[in-house]
């Protein structure tokens, strides 16, 4: 679920809240813990000129400049995850064993223009 923001969100590229509830996707009978987690996602614009806090590469700076000159021909850079965190999940596997497994890149911590 991604709550609708009560205040107008910043238009710039940044992490947005996204909570994944395992019961919503029907996995609650085999996932022991957690019941859900904050995965987030990236959203927002990468406008010209890109400020440092947008985690931009040099190429992204170039691309925004070209986009500002030729918006139809060249799109803006994309707002994507640039730093992610892992989570651990405790669950029952297909043979009813209890498993604690570490999954990488499951939480968006930071976004950037690329």
């Amino acid at each position, binding site marked *: 679920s991604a709550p609708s923001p009560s205040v107008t969100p910043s238009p710039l590229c940044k992490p947005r809240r996204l909570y994944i509830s395992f019961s919503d996707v029907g*996995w609650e009978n085999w996932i022991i813990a957690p019941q859900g987690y904050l995965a987030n996602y990236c959203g927002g614009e990468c406008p010209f000129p890109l400020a440092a806090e947008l985690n931009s590469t040099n190429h992204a700076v170039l691309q925004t400049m070209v986009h500002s000159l030729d918006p139809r021909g060249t799109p803006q850079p994309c707002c994507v995850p640039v730093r992610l*965190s892992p989570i651990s999940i405790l669950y029952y596997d*297909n*043979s*009813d064993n209890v498993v*604690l*497994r570490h999954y*990488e890149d499951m939480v968006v911590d930071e976004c950037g223009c690329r």
Partner: protein
Amino acid sequence: AGLSRQESSLLQSLGLSAKPSPKNPAPVPPVLRRMFQRREALPRPHKDRDPCRVEELSVPGDIVRVFADQGRFLPEGQPQGQLCLRRLLFFNLSVLEEGERLTMARLELQFQHNSYPAPSPGQVLELRLYRVSPRGLPQPRPGRRPLLERSFVRLHKSLPLDLSAALKTPGRNLALLLEISASGRTGSLRSLCASSDSFVATSLLVVTLGRQCRAGRSRR
């Protein structure tokens, strides 16, 4: 159907061949619950944590499983000493994926009482563990040395036995013959042998390095 396709591809990316549907789910082993709660308490983002290492057990790995024993008690034979427990331990390890590398295997024996009375002088408890064929007779091949041999003066409620070195390639089904006997004169250890319910449960904790970590490592 579209949703189930999406779901199965997501499950595959999580290393699951199909959506589990536990029939008689076992209680969560305390060791796993403690590990999970400890990780949940870590501040985010997990900056300096190695995702491919189980800190709590100090071994490489990203998957920790606890397998329940599906074996059975065997009639006592008396090859030597005073055999008071003979059990075939059987673990179905078929869920281990191809390419998973085992980095730790710990057998845990649980007994009824917190501690068994100290034996009389000169008496010890002997434990032998043999690897046997999952499909053959539950007895070691003649002349085969035990996988593990221990003797104890005192026995406690929980007895962990490290089999990591012995079980490098566990196979899909693992069968072990466990024998516990009292050596020397009969004595107070008899209490362990007298009641068959002294032996409560066995489980096998296995730590492996999954594809996600092994691929990452080769890249690095």
